[in-house]
């Protein structure tokens, strides 16, 4: 009998811990761990000296791509009203061009990497959203940049749908620009503009951080 009771309590304890864990802390820790491991992988690659810059960029993009919900980002940047006005074909084209642009822009920023590290804050959980505040810490601790990664619980798991850099949201800035363009021009003009920039090479200036 006594043994039975013991077993019962152990079991009860186990049940409580497992359910409470999944209900509350688990998602935020999952998200944080995912971000930390991805960032570590990226930093590791950026620090490697045996591969070219081009290879580095390709590998980094491969690592981070599954973390983003690019389709959602495209939708949010255009806004529901404009999105609905487009044919499925145009929606697809817009998404493709936009994602390409986002990736290029990200790749471009990688050339600023100069030994920075990442510091993580406490994740904030709201409904189906988790906000992950963090800071890019520069080597001399002088030019730190605050980052806010916004994750949502997509059907395919937790994905980033926006990033705020020093309080500046990627989605917001694209949104207001697209809105402005579409106010007096057509979607075809916008697509053409996006196409233009995605054809251009990742125009790293002749002066990279090296000559600073």
């Amino acid at each position, binding site marked *: *009998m006594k043994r*039975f*009771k013991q*077993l*019962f309590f152990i*079991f*009860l304890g*186990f*049940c409580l811990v*497992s*359910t409470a864990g*999944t209900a509350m802390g688990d998602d935020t820790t999952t998200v944080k761990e995912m971000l930390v491991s991805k960032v570590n992988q990226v930093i590791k690659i950026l620090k490697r000296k045996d591969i070219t810059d081009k290879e580095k960029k390709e590998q980094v993009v491969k690592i981070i791509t599954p973390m983003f919900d690019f389709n*959602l980002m495209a*939708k*949010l940047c255009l*806004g*529901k009203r404009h999105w609905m006005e487009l044919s499925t074909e145009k929606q697809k084209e817009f998404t493709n061009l936009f994602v390409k*642009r986002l990736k290029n*822009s990200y790749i*471009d*920023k990688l*050339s*600023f990497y100069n030994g920075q590290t990442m510091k993580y804050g406490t994740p904030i959980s709201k*409904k*189906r*959203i988790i906000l992950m505040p963090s800071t890019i810490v520069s080597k*001399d*601790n*002088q030019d730190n940049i605050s980052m806010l990664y916004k994750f*949502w619980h997509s*059907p395919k*798991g937790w994905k980033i*749908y926006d990033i*705020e850099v*020093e*309080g*500046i*949201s990627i*989605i*917001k*800035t*694209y*949104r*207001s*620009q*697209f*809105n*402005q*363009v579409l*106010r007096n021009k057509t979607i075809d003009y*916008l697509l053409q*503009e*996006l196409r233009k*920039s995605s054809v251009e090479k990742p*125009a790293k*200036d002749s*002066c*990279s951080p090296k*000559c*600073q």
Partner: protein
Amino acid sequence: MIRRQHVSIILLFLLGFFLLSTSLIYAADTGEPDASGFESSDIAALEKDFENQSSNVFDPLSGYNRIMTTVNDKIYFWFLKPVAQGYNYVVPEIVRTSIDRCFTNALFPVRFVNNLLQLKFKRAGIEISRFVVNTTVGIGGLADPAMAWLDLHPYDEDLGQTLGYYGLGGGFPIVWPVFGPSNVRDTVGMVGDFFLDPINYIDNMYISTGIQTYKRLNHTSLHIGEYESIKKDSVDLYILLRDAYEQKRNKDIEE
């Protein structure tokens, strides 16, 4: 015997509950089947966060602002950048960083007064310690021992932020030559802060303007490539800069 039965029933119940809960969680994780219903309402909820920043910004000077954005772009590419690049070539980065720090240190009155005006006394105190330590041990602010050894971080505040702190909205956007994006509130702030910048108390106007220009150049030399990178991201450069400025300022005011 009866008690034993009870326990086993409870056990069974708990086992069932446990299995159910885990399977439910599993279903939620891979819950593709009911995603269609969820998705649209979820996206609408997410979109709400971005909607309040309306696309209809009151921007009476937009024509002038756009021209000035182009002018500033030219000032950067035709003057600031080439000069800064030449300067980079001659002066090593450590020196430029130190000079930049020194100028930042000299702006202590701006940060101190505005922290006080916002009743952020602790931060104002930290600014005093930073100024004292960096001016003495750090040789006029060329080094930042307050940060390196004492872990005292600066609290950047200006009059525009102070006005924002007391609830004043930004007003419409104004792009200033050389200084770049601003708004009505921050322009008023800039004028006020002018009187807290020691450099402006140098008697000879040519010298003070010269120093300000040099300060700008030195700062630019440490950030070459950043503007280019932002510009490349833009579909409409003016709107991007205007929007990013407002968002950044709102965040600064919040802190």
